[in-house]
């Protein structure tokens, strides 16, 4: 019901009597179509293309030929198209509804970004084209780099890393190169990682060849400052801090920590995954950060692409800037962008992380987003993101335990625990119930410092009406979990598949299709 429909009139949806339902012959349920595996609908002798039997046969005869069938399922073009379209309709997407995955910033991907990215001058360039034929693309990279440097208050940016974790690796390799230049790489082997940091941080530090030393969180959900200061020393290469952290809180001691780490000879890496909460308001450079990746697919609205294509540019302080990987776009004295590819021009660069200059399609989308918002719009983005998260927190904390509700306002995500649920009911049950309500579940069981954690990030692109619907669903599910409603243990009941045996899937994964 709203102002445009005061009576709340709805078109008839027909009979919804429980007895009216019976299994269908096809297994389909109207538009919800059951879809077998490709191997079950294809056939060995099927093929989507008509080949001329004789065409090229003479050439093939001269070559070694396999004698056994390839055993791939042959499908016609419409069969293949329908297969993937049907599967896509069983999937959840940001274009279908609120996607509250905490720490993921699942915001709307503006369609104007897509229009810009599809312009042939950007979409059709090839990384091996001569520089003078791609000046527009280089200008896009340089302009985006200028914005990222300005928004973060840093000295420079490495644009090539392909994702957040790749960016973390870039930052740590830059730190290692800086330590090598100081002759201290062998002495400084330890990276401090607070418990409130992103889960990828310790993995990155280990992959980059460092040893990880965990730093506990204090009861407020922030870094235990005393424990961190006590651990600093000659063996510490640096610290990796996620700010705002995974408890949804701003690390207020950031500047004190950075000053102490610098005084002890280390560097400060900041995980920028949660930059959406502070963009336009806080410049990490002012807090003493030496390196931070920026997930363009989070803060700057490029698509989360099922593992790719991502882009995770890394902004660098004056101390680390010389070690940035190649290739790099710089502006010459006249302001014209130029691509540096030759290591002889940047002898301190630690190497290359990618064959080419980065994810052009993501750069154009992110720059389109930035230019449509402008500096004032980006400031409003973080304000609205934090407002939405606090609206959720305020609307749910009377029915769900909010462990850090007393630690001050949350940032862009609200954290709840399973405290108070009935015996035998868990966060997982509530998350499965959300599927029945038509939402993607929130991030569950992370961060690890909270029992049965539920991390909810609404982002700024949700309307109040959308938040209210989500809140209503969450309140009902919280009540059912506290009352011990047995039906909740069966959720999801409306999804294409019932609750899966996740333990069996993890213990005995079947990764390859085999006939039973």
């Amino acid at each position: 019901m709203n102002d445009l429909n005061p009576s709340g009139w709805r078109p008839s949806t027909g009979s919804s009597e429980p007895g009216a339902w019976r299994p269908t012959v096809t297994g389909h349920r109207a538009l919800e179509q059951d879809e077998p595996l490709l191997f079950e609908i294809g056939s060995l002798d099927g093929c989507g293309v008509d080949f001329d039997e004789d065409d090229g046969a003479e050439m093939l005869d001269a070559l070694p030929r396999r004698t056994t069938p390839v055993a791939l399922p042959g499908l016609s073009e419409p069969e293949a198209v329908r297969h993937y379209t049907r599967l896509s309709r069983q999937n959840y997407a940001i274009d279908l509804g609120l996607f509250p995955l905490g720490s993921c910033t699942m915001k709307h991907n503006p369609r104007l970004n897509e229009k810009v990215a599809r312009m042939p001058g950007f979409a059709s360039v090839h990384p091996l084209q001569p520089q003078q034929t791609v000046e527009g693309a280089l200008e896009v990279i340089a302009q985006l780099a200028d914005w990222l440097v300005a928004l973060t208050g840093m000295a420079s940016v490495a644009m090539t890393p392909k994702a957040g974790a790749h960016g973390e690796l870039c930052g740590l390799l830059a730190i290692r190169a800086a330590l090598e230049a100081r002759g201290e790489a062998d002495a400084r082997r330890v990276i401090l990682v607070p418990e409130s940091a992103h889960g990828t941080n310790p993995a990155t530090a280990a992959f980059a060849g460092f040893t990880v030393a965990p730093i506990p969180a204090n009861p407020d959900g922030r870094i235990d400052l005393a424990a961190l200061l006590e651990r600093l020393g000659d063996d510490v290469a640096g610290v990796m801090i996620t700010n705002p952290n995974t408890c949804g809180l701003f690390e207020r001691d950031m500047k004190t920590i950075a000053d102490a780490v610098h005084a002890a000879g280390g560097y400060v890496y900041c995980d920028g995954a949660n930059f959406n909460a502070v963009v336009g308001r806080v410049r990490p450079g002012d807090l003493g950060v030496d390196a931070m990746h920026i997930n363009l697919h989070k803060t700057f609205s490029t698509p989360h692409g099922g593992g790719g294509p991502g882009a995770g540019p890394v902004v660098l302080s004056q101390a680390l800037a010389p070690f940035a990987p190649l290739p790099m776009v710089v502006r010459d004295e006249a302001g014209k962008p130029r691509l540096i590819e030759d290591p002889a021009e940047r002898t301190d660069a630690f190497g290359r992380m990618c064959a080419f200059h980065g994810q052009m399609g993501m750069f154009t989308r992110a720059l389109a987003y930035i230019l449509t918002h402008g500096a004032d719009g980006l400031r409003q983005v973080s304000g609205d993101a934090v407002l939405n998260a606090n609206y959720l927190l305020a609307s749910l904390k009377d029915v769900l335990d909010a462990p850090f509700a007393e630690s001050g306002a949350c940032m862009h995500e609200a954290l709840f625990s399973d405290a108070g649920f009935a015996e035998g009911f868990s966060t997982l049950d509530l998350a499965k119930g959300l599927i029945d309500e038509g939402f993607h579940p929130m991030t569950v069981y992370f961060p690890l410092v909270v029992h049965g954690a539920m991390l909810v990030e609404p982002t700024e692109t949700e309307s109040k009406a959308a938040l209210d619907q989500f809140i209503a669903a969450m309140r009902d599910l919280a009540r059912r979990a506290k009352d011990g409603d047995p039906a909740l243990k069966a959720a999801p009941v409306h999804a294409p598949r019932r609750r899966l045996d996740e333990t069996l899937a993890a213990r005995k994964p079947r990764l390859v299709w085999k006939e039973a």
Partner: protein
Amino acid sequence: MPRYFTRDHEWIEVDGPKARVGITDYAQSQLGDITYVDLPAVGATMARGDSVAVIDSVKAASDVYAPAGGTVTAVNAALEEAPELVNASAEADGWLWELDLADPVELDELLDAAAYTDFIAGL
């Protein structure tokens, strides 16, 4: 044989200069269904507090810290095929590794059963 506990929820059972290590029943109940156990190599040396094993469960991947330093003499090979043993029997059949203790004095800083029970009651 004396058994000690850590605040990170490992147990260590000491037999002279040798010891056997696992995670506590409380730890397995918090982790949920365990799906994979990554154990140290036989012959590996460890210092007390080192992260030396990883336990994957449906909820999380968790480090296991060495309650005491030493050299690994055996690992529980049954866990490779049956990680669920840790859920079923965390403090007996689901043990993780055995070691020759480097310095038994380190054990003095660990909790006894009563102190550990008090510790988890306060969590």
